[in-house]
């Protein structure tokens, strides 16, 4: 299908296009320079055109997500979507069922979503769910944090085996990057011990989070993986944890810089807390931001927005402590030899000093950092469901909205953070950076996040002028929640905020080479410890509906 988008105002940071009125040509699902004849023309009348949105960290499929769905039938009741024409039905506000996940993302102009934190043993489940998510292109990150094999090899100082194991596991689970959640902490908790710094030892294994992380970064560098280690730091959500975060960032000093960042720190908001207790809880964002600018790391924000949501992370101990605070239901999904994700619902309240401060920290980070370093996420559904992205965009774009909100929330948000004194307002060029371009760049999705020749024709059109009036923030929220048009691989899927068509997206995975001898070594672990055999663990390409492999030359 040939398509021409005429008279759009284009924001394409990766090609340096800042609000130029130009036409975009689409042929066979890709962007081309020119089409001579036979193309369908669409006049956009000066509306804003951006590459399709890209979510780098969103828990939309996998084992714990499904436990969340099972655990929260009352959440399903809040959002019931009936079947409509070709579109499937679904439910859920914070733990959305898979089909409406795709539709809701498309409505906001998002076309790619990466789901982090899948225990390798649950990878099959994740892929089968990803297969069913419509419209979006996806990828999955397997978890390496509490892996027995890796911890044993670190204790033996057998780096050769670690590198080969990382390559083998990514290939076996059809993953895309190395994900690390609270390295060592979850396994230590399984032995009834808590780790408080990155130099505490994991019992029974005798390794520290610092060693685990160093080994994994080294493996990712030597294998030349397109995305760096994707890290959820230790001590998430604890007052005073910003020091741990800074210590962790400093680990990257040992490594040589390459084309991409050495480390990705995810949902940074949850790791920027100062103070020594919940009473003296305050923002440590400024200190962390300084280190982020200095080092070769990328971050995503992990904004927290008010309302009821479900928290789920592979950080089992953190979820356990959270449910002790809230007294609400809780589940832990232990996965043998690998990790133990936890799930518990939470209500973030405007009246709470802690929640209000967390909300403000989530906005401080993007406002203090240069736009090249920022990526917007809510760590769906931990900080808020991803459907809150338009509100976050509006908060970044409009100082007036922030001032209005600061009046409505607990005064701690003003006194314990510096949000009130930050005047910066994002423009659409920067918004395009923090919601799509940066993500595509640091994850090595080279044909996404821009509108240059050869890029996949994933395009979002928003009903906004090129320089929107930032005091009318409600219009910004409306425009970003209901994309005027979303195009996925050259097919129009959303028109004026309504999903009109659905397509099947691709799942991207890495094809990494490893030495065959490692299989024999790993097989011993399967024989001795796992409840499944190695043959049943490896996922075949035939189990993925539509996939594209990225070869990695180490």
């Amino acid at each position: 299908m040939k398509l021409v988008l005429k008279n759009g105002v284009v924001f394409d940071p990766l090609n340096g296009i800042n609000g130029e009125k130009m036409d975009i040509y689409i042929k066979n699902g890709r962007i081309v320079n020119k089409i001579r004849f036979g193309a369908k023309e669409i006049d956009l009348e000066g509306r804003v055109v951006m590459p399709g949105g890209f979510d780098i960290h969103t828990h939309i499929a996998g084992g714990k997500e499904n436990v969340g769905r099972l655990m929260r039938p009352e959440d399903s009741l809040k959002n019931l979507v009936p079947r409509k024409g070709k579109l499937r039905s679904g439910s859920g506000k914070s733990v959305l069922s898979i089909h409406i996940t795709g539709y809701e993302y498309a409505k906001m102009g998002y076309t790619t979503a990466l789901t982090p934190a899948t225990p390798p043993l649950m990878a099959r489940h994740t892929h089968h769910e990803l297969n069913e998510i419509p419209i979006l292109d996806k990828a999955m990150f397997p978890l390496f944090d509490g892996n027995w094999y890796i911890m044993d090899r670190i204790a033996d100082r057998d780096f050769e085996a670690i590198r080969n194991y990382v390559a083998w596991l990514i290939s076996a689970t059809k993953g895309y990057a190395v994900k690390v959640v609270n390295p060592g902490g979850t396994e230590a908790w399984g032995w009834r011990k808590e780790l408080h710094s990155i130099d505490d030892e994991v019992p029974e294994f005798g390794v520290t989070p610092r060693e685990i992380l160093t080994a994994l970064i080294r493996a990712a560098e030597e294998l030349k993986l397109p995305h760096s280690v994707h890290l959820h730091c230790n001590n998430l959500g604890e007052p005073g944890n910003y020091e741990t975060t800074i210590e962790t960032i400093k680990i990257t000093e040992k490594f040589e810089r390459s084309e991409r960042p050495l480390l990705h720190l995810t949902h940074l908001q949850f790791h920027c807390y100062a103070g020594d207790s919940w009473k003296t809880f305050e923002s440590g964002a400024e200190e962390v931001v300084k280190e982020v600018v200095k080092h070769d790391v990328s971050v995503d924000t992990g904004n927290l927005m008010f309302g009821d949501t479900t928290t789920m992370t592979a950080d089992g101990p953190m979820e356990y402590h959270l449910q002790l605070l809230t007294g609400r239901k809780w589940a832990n999904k232990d996965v043998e030899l690998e990790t133990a994700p936890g799930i518990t619902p939470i209500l973030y309240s405007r009246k709470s000093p802690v929640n209000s401060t967390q909300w403000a920290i989530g906005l401080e980070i993007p406002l203090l950092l240069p736009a090249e370093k920022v990526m917007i996420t809510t760590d769906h559904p931990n900080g808020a469901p991803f459907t809150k992205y338009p509100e976050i965009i509006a908060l970044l774009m409009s100082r007036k909205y922030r001032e209005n909100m600061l009046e409505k929330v607990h005064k701690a948000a003003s006194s314990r953070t510096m949000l009130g004194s930050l005047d910066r307002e994002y423009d659409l060029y920067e918004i395009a950076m923090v919601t799509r371009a940066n993500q595509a760049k640091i994850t090595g999705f080279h044909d996404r996040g821009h509108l240059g020749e050869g890029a996949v024709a994933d395009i979002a059109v928003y009903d906004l002028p090129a320089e929107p009036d930032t005091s009318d923030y409600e219009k910004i929220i409306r425009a970003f929640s209901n994309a005027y048009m979303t195009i996925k691989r050259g097919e129009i899927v959303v028109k004026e905020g309504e999903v009109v068509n659905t397509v099947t997206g691709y799942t991207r995975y890495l094809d990494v080479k490893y030495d065959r001898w490692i299989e024999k070594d790993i097989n011993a672990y399967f024989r001795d410890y796992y409840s499944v055999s190695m043959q049943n663990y490896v996922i075949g390409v035939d189990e993925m509906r539509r996939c594209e492999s990225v070869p990695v030359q180490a």
Partner: protein
Amino acid sequence: MFLFRLKDEPEVCVEVDTLLPEKLKKLDVRDVKNLKVRLGKLETSVEELFDVERVEGESVIFEGKWLDRVKRIGFGMTEGEIVVRGNAGMYTGAFMKGGRIVVEGSVDRFAGMNMSGGEIVVRRNAGDYLGSGYRGDAGMKGGRIVVEGNAGDEAGIKMKGGEIIVKGKAGLFFGGMMSGGTARAERAERAGANMKNGMIVLEKARDEDILPGFTYTGKDEFENRIYYVFEGDKAVRKSKGKLLVRELEQ
């Protein structure tokens, strides 16, 4: 206001959450007849299933022999009065915020589910999950339910506020996991399991009905009568729930 007489026994259950007093008071008979109600998975008009008449007074009245197959009477209502002359089906008064429902017969399960205000009066018995919550949610938050007969299992489960009064017996786990409000019954089994706060008042209880998580704290006066007071359920951290029993039987 209006009287709805069910014409015949419906093949599948009817759902009448559109027939609320606050919506009906502005309409005339012809509009009401054209309103949509659910018949199983299909939508149909009120006229198909009910004879509609305008009557004296301010209440919406349901009549007919097969009203126990009519679900969601007064679902989410905020004001006015509904009278059911017979047995009401499931979800009667669920998500109710105000007003009053009088059922002259019995109600089926989930009556007053997630209720936050108003009053439900049941002249005969209530089914299971009276004043409970939607699966996974907290239960009743406010309002008042009076059952003149017996109640089924798990009445007032996860209750947060309001009042449930069962004049007869209540079933298993009466007021289980409750964190506020008051639940009263003549007798109940395993009352207050995992309760955190709130109060359960029983007129009679056998020794084995008091769960082991409750500790005896002495006698106290409540509504001019002397009750044995138990505190619990100690299986829950920081629990301050009260279980009052007037007569302990061996």
